């Protein structure tokens, strides 16, 4: 199993499926996660598909110098979002290694993703 049984189950799972800079989906999905955490919800984050690129080290500024989402992700721990998952299959698709990523997320197989979805009473996809 890829989830930690010591941890109380999350109340909200936010699935982030878009990379940085190409659209506002990643930022807007993160905003929902951060606000939910600030409201005291137990939030889990799953980076899936292109979303795994959000965690890549060495990101820069955007097309017109905008700062992107990496600075926000670096502050994630302050928000008490401690469950960070990343889709193992997507990592393989991009040829990335778990250890190249920021924030040390836990890689999940497809089965573990289905389990994560099953155990959260609320799931939002971005």
């Amino acid at each position, binding site marked *: 199993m890829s989830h930690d049984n010591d941890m109380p189950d999350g109340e909200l799972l936010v699935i982030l499926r878009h990379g940085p800079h190409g659209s506002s989906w990643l930022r807007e999905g993160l*905003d*929902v996660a951060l*606000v939910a955490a600030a*409201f005291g*919800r137990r939030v889990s984050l799953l980076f899936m598909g292109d979303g795994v690129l959000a965690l890549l080290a060495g990101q820069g500024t955007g097309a017109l110098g905008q700062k992107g989402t990496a600075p926000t992700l670096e502050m994630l721990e302050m928000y008490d979002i401690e469950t960070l998952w990343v889709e193992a299959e997507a990592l393989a698709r991009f040829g990335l290694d778990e250890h190249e990523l920021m924030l040390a997320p836990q890689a999940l197989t497809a089965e573990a993703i289905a389990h994560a979805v099953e155990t959260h009473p*609320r799931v*939002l*996809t971005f």
Partner: protein
Amino acid sequence: MRYAILLMGAPYSDQASHSALRFARALVARGHRLEAVFFYHDGVYNAARLAAPPQDEPHLVDGWVALHDDHGVALQVCIAAALRRGLMDAREAARHGKEGHSVAEPFELTGVGQLVDLGQRCDRLVTFGP
């Protein structure tokens, strides 16, 4: 049951808004309570006051307003997503030193916290993406 809808597609650009309005009507027709529609991402454009679709196309703003008037459905627009996209009520316009407003009544600008709250107190939250 108590429902909420999260709508994230721009009106007319893709089917999301049409699908969400159709689903909303079917919900209330089956006797459910639709607490609110939360407009996020490009869904906020549904609140545009000056929308003037061709006469042979459905008027989505009017559709949302009717849902509010007839069934008490709250029309909640994410303020952060709205402001960057040019959707403001008179109060925000004044705060930004601008005149006029672009959000139709009774759409209300609100925070993402409202979405979190809806997710918690409704039995179902159904998302329509672009």
